[in-house]
């Protein structure tokens, strides 16, 4: 059973507009969430994270919002740039506290 779900496999956005990537989770005990970005033929790289004690975390063009009651988080990229085209994975720590449970990813395409 997937504990972290990304229901949109792909998203296409024009350059300069906002990209919104969504993620739902099943367990209300999860208390820390991360977003990773992956280019083809490269390993994922950490992008931004949020703790459940917050509802928003911002880093430059990237903002993550957490809605605990809905068990939903979203990543906003503003403004989107062609270099943001990649697969984005949302993740949370597993029960062990070491490994990550990843969603299936959303492929973002930012067109000029």
């Amino acid at each position: 059973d997937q504990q972290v779900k990304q229901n949109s496999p792909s998203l296409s956005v024009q350059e300069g507009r906002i990209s919104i990537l969504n993620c739902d989770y099943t367990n209300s005990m999860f208390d820390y969430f991360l977003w990773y970005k992956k280019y083809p033929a490269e390993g994922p790289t950490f992008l931004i994270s949020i703790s459940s004690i917050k509802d928003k975390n911002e880093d430059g063009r990237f903002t993550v919002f957490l809605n605990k009651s809905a068990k939903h988080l979203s990543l906003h990229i503003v403004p989107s740039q062609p270099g943001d085209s990649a697969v984005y994975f949302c993740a949370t720590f597993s029960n062990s506290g070491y490994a990550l449970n990843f969603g299936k990813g959303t492929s973002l395409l930012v067109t000029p």
Partner: protein
Amino acid sequence: DVKVTQSSRYLVKRTGEKVFLECVQDMDHENMFWYRQDPGLGLRLIYFSYDVKMKEKGDIPEGYSVSREKKERFSLILESASTNQTSMYLCASSFGDRGTQYFGPGTRLTVL
């Protein structure tokens, strides 16, 4: 900068062969991980290790084993490769409980 390196970027093996995938990290991280990435399935954890000679099964350990004889090195072993093990294999490392994971570039393994 954390560096995680993997022994091969591309590998082609025959069904039934024993396959070794090597991963080395240079940041003295305690934790190391092996994931595989498949289209539509995201990243799935195969095994992880939180200390030398320690290992824990992930979500899909069947058909794989691991070895961690030194802190910086974590090996994934396919005892008898099968075609359904054709995949992108990603190694990661992290420090401590809930540490950010840093990924290697991945090994694209094809089993014929």
